[in-house]
């Protein structure tokens, strides 16, 4: 501010008291004090830690990351064995965390939306069942629920030797679910390329179709044509590639079922537990999102003669989405964070691997700092993505 501080009676120089009475000066003082306190506290903790580490001969630094981990991890999305480094082990844990969180987020959104709408259903029994579901699974600690699912899943299915085979090649056992996967072949690469070409083609056709509709008002059966192009092109590539039929079928070899793709009971327990728990919150978010749209919007649609189903789709849901996004983001973050409980039922997530690492190397500070910053990073990423989405959905205001 460039104003002079002269009193109306005449010129007088400013005293210290005048300075202390100035709002701006005061604000700066408060801030300096606050920052000072934070720095002081930080310095105190760090210096204590250094002294303690020194005194107790505890080694520090992230050098251990290159050492051989020498423990096995049951499921991994990258190449890993006991000879791999701790860094690789942590990466495996991270990927497992991401895998279960991502799938959990998708599933809990679907299930939560269904139950959220069911709670507003006009069908009494459906409404009550949805309420019971939501209230039950919301009010029991998620850790207990994980224990519960992990107790149920391995017991619900037979030993691999007597595996239950609902579809040829799909095996349900106490060690999880096995599915056949195609053996690698050039044809699949070709199909991938075809899929990309199809998507690009569909993109352009859609642009053209929109233009045509705007000009002539004639709609274009985009969904049918698009599906046709996609399926056709990919199938063509499959035939050109020689139509390979080899599948890697899961079958019993020795102790275990070998081959195919395995979904372990630990993973299932964590996934189901987190999904069920979080879906109850998502259901509440969806319900209140729908209820948050002012009644006037329904009335306006009614008075225009628009059918309720169309009104829900075109008028209400797009608006409730806007209300629902911030609390949904919170639930997604919670799910990601709760995935750290996977350690309790033996799913090798980030915390589980870090825990073992911490125990073997004794370097608690480093291990904790690694997984804390990874979680922070994941949370930030999720928030950023949802903020971006929120902006996209936000209403334009004056």
């Amino acid at each position, binding site marked *: 501010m460039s104003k002079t501080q002269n009193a109306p009676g005449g010129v007088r120089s400013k005293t210290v008291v005048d300075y202390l009475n100035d709002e701006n000066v005061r604000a700066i003082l408060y801030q300096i004090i606050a920052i000072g306190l934070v720095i002081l506290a930080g310095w105190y903790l760090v210096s204590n830690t250094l002294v303690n580490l020194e005194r107790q001969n505890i080694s520090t630094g992230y050098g251990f990351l290159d050492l051989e981990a020498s423990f096995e991890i049951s499921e991994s999305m990258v190449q890993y064995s006991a000879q791999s480094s701790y860094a690789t082990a942590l990466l495996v844990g991270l990927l497992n965390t991401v895998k279960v969180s991502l799938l959990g987020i998708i599933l809990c959104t679907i299930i939560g939306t269904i139950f959220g709408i069911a709670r507003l259903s006009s069908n009494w029994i459906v409404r009550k069942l949805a309420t019971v579901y939501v209230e039950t699974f919301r009010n029991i600690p998620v850790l207990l629920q994980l224990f519960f699912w992990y107790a149920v899943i391995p017991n619900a299915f037979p030993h691999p030797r007597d595996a239950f085979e609902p579809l040829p090649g799909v095996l349900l056992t106490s060690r999880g679910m096995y599915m056949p996967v195609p053996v690698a072949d050039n044809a699949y690469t070709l199909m991938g390329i075809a899929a990309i070409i199809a998507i690009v083609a569909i993109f352009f056709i859609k642009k053209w179709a929109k233009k045509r*509709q*705007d*000009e*002539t*008002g*004639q709609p274009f059966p985009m969904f049918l044509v698009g599906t046709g192009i996609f399926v056709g092109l990919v199938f063509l590539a499959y035939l050109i590639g020689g139509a390979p039929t080899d599948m890697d079928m899961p079958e019993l070899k020795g102790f275990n079922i070998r081959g195919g793709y395995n979904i372990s009971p630990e993973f299932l327990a964590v996934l189901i537990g987190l999904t069920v728990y979080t879906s109850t919150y998502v259901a509440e978010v969806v319900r209140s999102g729908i209820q948050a749209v*002012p009644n*006037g*919007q329904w*009335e*306006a649609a*009614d*008075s*225009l*003669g*628009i*059918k309720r189903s*169309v009104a829900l789709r*075109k*008028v209400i849901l*797009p*608006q409730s989405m*806007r209300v629902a996004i911030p609390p949904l983001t919170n639930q997604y973050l919670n799910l990601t964070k709760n995935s750290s409980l996977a350690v309790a039922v033996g799913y090798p997530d980030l915390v589980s691997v870090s825990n073992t690492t911490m125990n073997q190397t004794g370097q608690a500070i480093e291990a904790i700092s690694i997984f804390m910053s990874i979680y922070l990073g994941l949370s930030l990423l999720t928030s950023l993505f949802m903020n971006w989405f929120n902006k996209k959905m936000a*209403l*334009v*205001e*004056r």
Partner: protein
Amino acid sequence: MITVSKANKWYGNFHVLKDIDLHVRKGERIVICGPSGSGKSTLIRTLNRLETYQSGEITVDGILLGDDVKNIEAVRREVCMVFQHFNLFPHMTVLENLTLAPIWVRKMPKKEAIDLAMHYLQRVRIAEQAHKFPGQLSGGQQQRVAIARSLCMQPKIMLFDEPTSALDPEMVKEVLDVMVELAKEGMTMLCVTHEMGFAKEVADRVVFMDAGEIVEMAGPQEFFANPKSERTKLFLSQILSH
């Protein structure tokens, strides 16, 4: 066009509409006024079946308004309502607001719907705002869009529930102007409003309601010049004194 006979409505035990009798002819313009809570909104919302009624009979354009879904749909195609708070769809542009109902209810081709919408937007004099969102418009502009949206359904009857009372004083005029024009073109209109100037200018009849009853019903000259009932006199003295 509209026949209301002995209509009664309760909210729980609260009797909001008491033996309402009202006949509206085609092309007639009716202004409804009365103190707050007297049931004005409830009455016109009942005509559109936004509210149910419990006894009596209401027919609109020859269609009996009851629980029959087909009848309700038919009535709603003919009767459009403009609300105090506009109730525009905030996530759609002005144009999308206007074309939504023609496309989904009248099954009109999109292009035609847009032409129609632009026609009515010009009529309410905001064609240049077609691609903005409601949130970007002033209150008066929003209300004009709401009127245009109703007009796009080409209704036989328009209902207005205090269309100007949420507006800044300067914007009232632009909305009233549009309504006066409509009235002059012969649209059948029922309008809840306290704008007595408007009532004097266009109303064929003024209806005064109090405590759920129609207390007085007369042509505007007579209504303002020599109101019969005490309640009407009191109300008019309050509303005109400043």
